[in-house]
């Protein structure tokens, strides 16, 4: 299919209103691609792929026999977000992060929200991400979730929903930056006509956010990125961010607690570390506090953290809000803490531990998506209308056995973007993961985010571990409206 005959069908398409009718913000892009022609586009796609291969932009897939590293497939047709739409998303995300951060402060101190009956204590106490050792800790500037990667999707009618908050260790930002680098070198001219917001400032903002956490009065605090090591699926990103920020990339075995401080082993002896951007999960951070069998963390780290002698980003314990049952309460949190109506909606969520919800879920398994309350990466999930009766029966049994562990949501008809597939242009479903940095005094939403695309025809699973790829996300500057603001000030 060529661009002229591209048909969005019954789906919401990010670039087209209907067949032959591009959205206004996409018009010049579509025109430009049409002039280029499919063959030329395909050639550019190959060039871009080789560029990423040479850069070694890879991710690792667990349990894959074919060597550990894979190239994250990349599609060169970008996903566009208009300036008005972005302003809406930005406001909605700031609101949500602010409320979630207040929730984390509350839940690890006085738990006012439970006492006021807005969220049952049972939900919190059964959430595996709720960490008792973190109760009573007040992190620097009262920020818990410094770096968030919220997953957004758009349904068939064009409405945005928050799918997941990802407050623990969200990954993917390196692809955003590398994809843009490759796109700019592949299509330099279109960037000049389209007024795309640049993405390169992320590492500077991230470093600022981290430096902000250092204990006061330190002239030159030492920031490190803590990685589980080269076999982790996001290792490329860990080293990329450390390199871009000019800080050390460390593994657990490089660190040691000596004299009450966190220190790293260097060729000149031990050196103190002040801020850790940790890309190791809570459970593995400190074998003395959490999982005793962890070799990825540092024995004694949490004690140093509790004494305020080292800062951790994100703070341990944020995982409680990633629990999909707790997620269902986020709109209530926004009302409770901010006294505002949520700008961004949650996907309607049925909580299987509620009897009435459970009954509904069990009767409507063929219409719903069932997810493990603490699953990730698209694993442990049932897409009802695609599953076989046996698979549905299996899930029904799991739900009955452990209702707290499952939630269900209606199957959304994710929006699509034209995608180059084997020399043809076809619609593929996408989601969007913007990255948000919370610095205490300010919340920054990085303009763009990672657009993940399900490359398998008809598939709704965008995860890289399950055949997903990515696209560059172009947030457009609306030059006219900026001009309008300026002239109204005159």
């Amino acid at each position, binding site marked *: 299919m060529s661009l002229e005959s591209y048909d969005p069908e019954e789906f919401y398409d990010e670039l087209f209103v209907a067949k032959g009718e591009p959205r206004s913000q996409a018009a010049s892009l579509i025109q430009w691609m049409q002039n280029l022609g499919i063959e030329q586009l395909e050639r550019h796609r190959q060039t871009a792929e080789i560029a990423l291969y*040479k*850069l*070694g932009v890879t991710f690792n897939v667990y349990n894959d026999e074919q060597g550990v590293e894979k190239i994250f497939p990349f599609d060169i047709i970008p996903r566009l977000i208009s300036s008005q739409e972005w302003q809406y998303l930005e406001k909605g995300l700031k609101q949500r992060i602010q409320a979630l951060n207040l929730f984390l402060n509350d839940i690890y101190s006085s738990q006012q929200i439970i006492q006021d009956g807005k969220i049952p204590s049972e939900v919190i106490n059964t959430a595996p991400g709720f960490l008792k050792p973190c109760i009573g800790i007040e992190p620097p500037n009262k920020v818990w979730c410094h770096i968030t990667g919220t997953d957004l999707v758009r349904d068939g009618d064009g409405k945005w929903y928050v799918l997941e908050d990802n407050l623990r260790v969200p990954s993917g930002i390196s692809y955003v930056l590398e994809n843009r680098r490759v796109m700019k070198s592949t299509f330099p001219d279109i960037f000049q006509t389209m007024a795309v917001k640049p993405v390169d400032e992320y590492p500077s903002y991230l470093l600022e956010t981290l430096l902000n956490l250092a204990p006061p009065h330190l002239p030159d605090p030492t920031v490190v990125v803590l990685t589980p*090591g*080269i076999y982790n699926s996001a*290792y*490329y990103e860990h*080293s*990329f961010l*450390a*390199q871009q920020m000019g800080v*050390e*990339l*460390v*593994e657990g*075995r*490089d660190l*040691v607690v*000596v004299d009450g401080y966190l220190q*790293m*082993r*260097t*060729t000149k*002896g*031990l050196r103190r570390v002040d801020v850790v951007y940790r890309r190791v999960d809570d459970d593995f951070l400190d074998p003395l506090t959490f999982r005793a069998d962890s070799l990825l963390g540092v024995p004694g780290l949490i004690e140093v953290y509790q004494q305020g002698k080292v800062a951790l980003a994100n703070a341990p314990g944020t995982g409680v809000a990633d629990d999909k049952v707790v997620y269902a309460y986020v709109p209530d949190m926004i009302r409770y803490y901010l006294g505002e109506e949520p700008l961004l909606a949650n996907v309607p969520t049925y909580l299987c531990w509620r009897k009435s919800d459970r009954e509904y879920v069990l009767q409507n398994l063929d219409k719903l998506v069932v997810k493990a309350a603490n699953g990730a990466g698209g694993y442990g999930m049932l897409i009802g209308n695609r599953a076989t009766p046996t698979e549905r029966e299996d899930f029904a049994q799991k739900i009955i056995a452990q209702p707290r562990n499952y939630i269900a949501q209606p199957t959304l008809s994710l929006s699509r973007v034209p995608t180059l597939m084997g020399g043809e242009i076809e619609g593929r479903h996408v989601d969007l993961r913007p990255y948000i940095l919370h610095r205490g005094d300010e919340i920054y939403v990085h303009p763009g985010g990672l657009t993940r695309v399900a490359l398998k025809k008809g598939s709704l699973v965008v995860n890289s571990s399950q055949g997903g790829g990515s696209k560059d996300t172009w947030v457009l500057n609306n030059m006219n409206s900026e001009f309008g603001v300026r002239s109204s000030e005159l």
Partner: protein
Amino acid sequence: MLSRVANSIYWLNRYIERAENVARFVDVNVNLILDLPAEITQQWQPLVSITGDVRLFKNRYGKANAENVIQFLTFDSDYPNSIISCLQVARENARSIREIISSEMWEEVNSFYLMVKEASPGKQRDGLPKFFEQVRMASHRFAGVMDATMTHNEGWHFGQMGRLLERADKTTRLLDVKYFVLLPSAQWVGTPLDQIQWMSLLKSASAYEMYRKCQHRIIPSSVVEFLILNRQFPRSIHFCLWQAERCLHEITNTSIGTWCNSAERSLGKLCSQLGYLTIDDIVESGLHEFLGDMQSSINGVGNEIYTTFFAVDNC
């Protein structure tokens, strides 16, 4: 800098250099064999002997013929010192310090690895000389890129030191090939064939032209002297160790001639020993024995570097 990082950049360079030298070994042997009279059987066992992994080879392959030895030394990913394994380890090390080295260095290692990996399955014999040439050039490119794009800081010196120690070790082994490759009989010593073999050896160390400039005639003892004691040729053992010593002292900031740790002491001793040796001393003690001692001394320096810098205790 982190001990682990220093360790990785050191081994990254050692393994790249090792891959280059394995290519040189195989190449010298191929050349030596081509020069042998037709009635003499090909000698591949020597190549296995100099690696020191004779038993491993015997168990896995049995007979030391061209096919087996080349497979073993270049494409056998189960043999840790084969070219492909060296590249794998070098790349793993580079990957773990990507944020420390320059992007250009990473890209060199990555494409070097991909080149060897793509060459591996069923490489045609007549394509081999070209392949070994590519391996050598890729190694030079990496060294050049590192020199020109990375700050000459502590990490750079660790890398440089790794490369130089590896090269010194491998030059001893390259010289040993000649010891193992036997002439048809004692009568052949000093004949044109003997000369041709020494020339091949020089060429494999990229030393032929440079040797000619300062020695003219191909005399065995002069060739040995050139590759062991020359102070200016970058693959001679003395040059490598002397430069490695400079790197070591840049790292610790102590002046050459003094020492503050055991690595400096043993490398310093080795360098002064080489500085006052003559080729007659070496010939008298026996070349093969001398090279063996040299190998274990260089090994010792490597161990001292490990305990001094890479294995930092908790206090």
